[in-house]
């Protein structure tokens, strides 16, 4: 049944994307469309004392300037503002709700005009006076105000005593700066005012149903009044999990003016959305001289806003990954006058594992052990935090395959010992780990007698390849060529799906397709079985497959009835089935993906210029549904990991509480010239426990471990340990 699953199938939406046929949220046409431009606050904390829109309103082509004072009603209660992925604790930001300023670049008005340029110009004429209050935006300056988030982790043994008594100890702070997602597509919403007064919202989001429910709550609308659509997303990486403020503003505009309104944020304005929170990660490791761990402690201190407690799992990876009888973990938050952070590729893990794996490297140096060997000495076949076996864990194989492909055995362990002309050469490695999550998803399949099927679901494809894997799984399950499958996604009126995130969508959507396909097969069997002289009379469902446009006996394919015949005899043209798939809860196993990342850097000895000349990433993530899109996921993640190691940093001037590099000229991400060879290895990891197809998901695992592997390589090259990211050349100079 696997003509497509597991193959390097090309993206089914690839052509639409490269030819421009794919439409994004800010591109949908609408009659008499108006354009909104956001006016932002220029202080981080206080209130609006006066907001004068008169001059802006005089500009020809301006229809309205919406502010907290004149906007249509918004929910006053906190609950409707809490979307599916809002932090439990706190009260979400409500754009244009009142006169308070909670963070710099907060939206405070929306200028609506006949065209975007006019709106943008008029926005410069909105006069604002503030009552500024004292504020703080500097995590390191406010470190002493860090408070444990409400659920502290359960310690194991006595970490303090074990650390004190350890043969070899390492303890250090690792500092990960604030980082922004910078997806290529700008945040945008086109709110279309339909003739019947209903709204169709084209929004850039990772979850149309999340936005739908949110808008219905915030604007007190019935589910039928609003439809949210987001067929293509030009990258989001977590920034689109929660409804962003432009969707509220565009909807406000449409309601106020009873016309269609589009709001497209500028690149600069996108720095006022979510971000990876800056963290100080303090890791302590204590080991016996043989290299086994005695104690692990990991304390994360992270930024959050004053109004919400955003915290991710930074420390849980140290808790589960390595064998250690004693351990202690804590996650502390510092509330600052900034917007709430958000998920960003491998939230928690990208930062937490970076610190852990740098610390492991430092411990290996102290123990005079090879870094891979140290990991093997501490290897655990059970999740240490819950003491559970894994559904599968081929991390050992990742180390072996990765090391082999990289040539790790030729590494001279001494720092500064390897050279290439004027360059110092460094080889470093790190472990990666992420969860293998799965969520309830429903899929509808409409099969027509000509052997074509439409598969639909509200899930988003944020560039990860959901369209393609849904088509692959459906083609296999329905026994049809992939060209006969059309996939519809990301419309709130389609069957239920959660936000696309956490790397759960591949497993979740694939199994929903299987479940719906089984319903289709059941119906086809019913029809086929009733045919006179049917070769499938009295055949059990379990004993059938869909194959080559027919329903056939599983053991004997020659007993077959074509889809067309079955439907004709049943007197129908199409079969439509919808099924919600739920995964059985398994509390007896831990579910994770793993990787081993090996990196080579070349560092100009005099000038400190760093090039990452080679990365090998060996990934164990269950069954790989599509080796082509899967490889792209990992390569993209590795590139991002290079950025996290060497380039990315949102820089703030704490005197103003303002981000000072809010553009992609000055906020550096890797460019082509920064990327050399990336070798992706998928390690076989059969897993019949986790789910039917053995899928674990791939979105996040690729970045985890990459920054640490590079930092460790930089140490190996130069003998300098840089614990404050990104590793820019000035840090290597002294």
């Amino acid at each position, binding site marked *: 049944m696997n003509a497509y699953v597991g193959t390097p199938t090309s993206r089914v939406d690839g052509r639409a994307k490269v030819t421009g046929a794919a439409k994004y949220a800010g591109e949908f046409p609408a009659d008499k469309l108006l354009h909104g431009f956001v006016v932002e606050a*220029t202080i981080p904390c206080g209130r609006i004392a006066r907001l004068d829109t008169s001059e802006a309103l005089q500009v020809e082509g301006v229809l309205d300037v919406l502010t907290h004072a004149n906007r249509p009603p918004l929910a006053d209660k906190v609950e409707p503002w809490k979307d599916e992925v809002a932090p439990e604790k706190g009260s979400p930001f409500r754009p244009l709700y009142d006169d308070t300023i909670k963070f710099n670049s907060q939206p405070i008005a929306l200028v609506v005009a006949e065209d975007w*340029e006019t709106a*943008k*110009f008029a926005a*410069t004429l909105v006069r604002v006076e503030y009552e500024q209050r004292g504020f703080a935006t500097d995590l390191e300056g406010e470190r002493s105000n860090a408070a444990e988030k409400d659920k502290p982790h359960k310690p194991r043994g006595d970490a303090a005593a074990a650390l004190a008594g350890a043969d070899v100890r390492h303890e250090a702070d690792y500092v990960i700066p604030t980082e922004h997602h910078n997806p290529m597509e700008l945040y945008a919403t086109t709110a279309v005012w339909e003739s019947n007064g209903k709204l169709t919202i084209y929004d850039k989001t990772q979850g149309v149903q999340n936005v739908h429910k949110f808008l219905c709550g915030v604007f007190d609308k019935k589910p039928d009044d609003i439809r949210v659509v987001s067929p293509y997303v030009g990258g989001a990486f977590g920034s689109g999990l929660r409804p962003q403020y432009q969707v509220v503003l565009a909807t406000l505009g449409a309601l106020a003016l009873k016309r269609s309104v589009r709001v497209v944020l500028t690149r600069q304005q996108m720095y006022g959305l979510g971000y990876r929170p800056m963290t100080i990660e303090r890791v302590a490791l204590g080991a016996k001289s043989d290299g086994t761990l005695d104690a692990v402690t990991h304390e994360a201190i992270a930024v959050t806003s004053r109004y919400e407690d955003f915290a991710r799992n930074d420390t849980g990876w140290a808790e589960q990954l390595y064998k250690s009888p004693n351990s202690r973990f804590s996650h502390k938050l510092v509330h600052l006058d900034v917007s709430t952070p958000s998920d960003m590729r491998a939230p928690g893990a990208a930062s937490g594992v970076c610190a852990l794996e740098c610390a492991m490297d430092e411990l290996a140096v102290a123990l005079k052990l090879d870094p891979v060997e140290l990991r093997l000495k501490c290897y655990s076949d059970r999740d240490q935090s819950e003491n559970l076996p894994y559904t599968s864990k081929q991390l050992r194989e990742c180390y072996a395959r990765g090391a082999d492909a990289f040539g790790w055995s030729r590494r001279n362990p001494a720092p500064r010992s390897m050279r290439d002309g*004027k*360059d110092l050469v460094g080889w470093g490695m790190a472990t990666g780990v992420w969860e293998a999550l799965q969520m309830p998803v429903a899929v509808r399949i409409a099969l027509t007698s000509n052997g074509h099927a439409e598969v639909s679901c509200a899930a988003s494809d944020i560039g990860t390849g959901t369209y393609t894997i849904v088509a692959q799984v459906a083609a296999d399950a329905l026994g049809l060529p992939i060209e006969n499958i059309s996939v519809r996604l990301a419309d709130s009126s389609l069957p239920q799906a959660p936000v696309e995130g956490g790397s759960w969508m591949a497993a979740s959507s694939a199994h929903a397709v299987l479940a719906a396909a089984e319903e289709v097969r059941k119906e086809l069997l019913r029809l086929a079985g009733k045919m006179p002289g049917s070769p499938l009379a009295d055949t059990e469902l379990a004993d059938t497959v869909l194959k080559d446009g027919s329903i056939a006996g599983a053991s004997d394919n020659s007993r077959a009835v074509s889809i067309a015949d079955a439907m004709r005899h049943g007197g129908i043209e199409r079969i439509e089935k919808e099924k919600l798939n739920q995964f059985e809860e398994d509390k007896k196993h831990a579910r994770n993906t793993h990787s081993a990342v090996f990196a080579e850097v*070349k560092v*100009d000895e*005099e*000038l*400190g*210029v760093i*090039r990452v000349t080679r990365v090998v990433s060996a990934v164990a993530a269950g069954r790989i549904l599509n080796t082509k899109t899967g490889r792209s996921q990992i390569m993209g993640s590795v590139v991002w990991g290079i950025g996290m190691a*060497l*380039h990315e940093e949102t*820089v703030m*001037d704490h*005197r*103003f509480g*303002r981000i*000072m*590099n809010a553009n992609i*000229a*000055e906020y*550096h991400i*890797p*460019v*082509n*010239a*920064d990327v050399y060879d990336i070798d992706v290895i998928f390690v076989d990891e059969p897993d019949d426990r986790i789910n039917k197809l053995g899928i674990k998901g791939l979105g996040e695992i690729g970045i985890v471990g990459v920054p640490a592997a590079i930092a460790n390589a930089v140490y190996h090259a130069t003998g300098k340990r840089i614990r404050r990211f990104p590793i*820019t*050349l*000035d840090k290597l*100079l*002294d």
Partner: protein
Amino acid sequence: MNNFQYARATDVADAIRLLADPGAKLIAGGTNLIDLMKENVERPTRLIDISRLPLRKVEETADGSLRIGALVPNSDLAYHPLIEQRYPLLASAILAGASAQLRNMASVGGNLMQRTRCAYFYDTATPCNKRHPGSGCSAMDGLNRNHAILGTSASCIATNPSDMSVALAALGALVHIAGPSGERAVAVTDFHRLPGDKPHVDTSLGTGEIITAIELPPRGFAQNYSYLKIRDRMSYAFALVSVAAALELEGNAISGARLALGGVAHKPWRSLEAEAALRGQAATPDHFSHAADVLLQGATTRSHNGFKVELARRAIVRTLTQATNATPQSQAHKKIA
């Protein structure tokens, strides 16, 4: 962005006439000006489009100099056979800058006139003497990792971001200017100003004046040269420090030397003293190092840009070594030679 009027100049005289309007600005490739207009940093009320004026020629003059029209695109200039052969230092510096797309749009005149990348200059919500004279310099005690270490003033520590201008300064190029009172020429090294107490004035270009051409003197230093740009990523980033070095060698003895730095001052920083220190000496790392000391004498640093002094010193030595060995830094292969 402001509303503005748009006029296309029919010839240089027309452009000069239109420039009488104090709210007017010339636009060539637009790659710097439009960005600044979008940020409300530049707010011209009239744009004078000069992109179609006939200033696109690269011509040899009778005395062996090369005259380059102000509208020659950066890409065309870098790949022009005469530049590649006679002034490879300039070709290299241009290719070290921006991206291919930007270089295709950018003009020689616009490149000379591009404004600083100081983050405060770009952010109208913060004080900046260059943008808003008298408002204060936010960089002085703020984020100044990218800022100047030479020729700074108490009112501004911004750097000039151009790569091309650094090579032009080293090569001793002239800027040809036309204006209401006729034509004049000024050395590139006198064209850009130091901030002093008027950081809002970047150059010595007067009211109503337009750059018509640059002129390269005959000596091209095509044998022993190198342009080395040190930046935070391998491409598409402004220089932390860049060095243009050019030598004339007799055996191992330096008979002629040119040395200019980018990323360290409000203007491309050519040092005649350092050049004099090199002249007559053997081309050895010790002498290069001494020249670096001479050049960096009087460098002043702020909280985040202290590293630039040592970086500049090492980059100078390295670039002079590359020039001596006739192994100029390649702008395509990022490994530093």
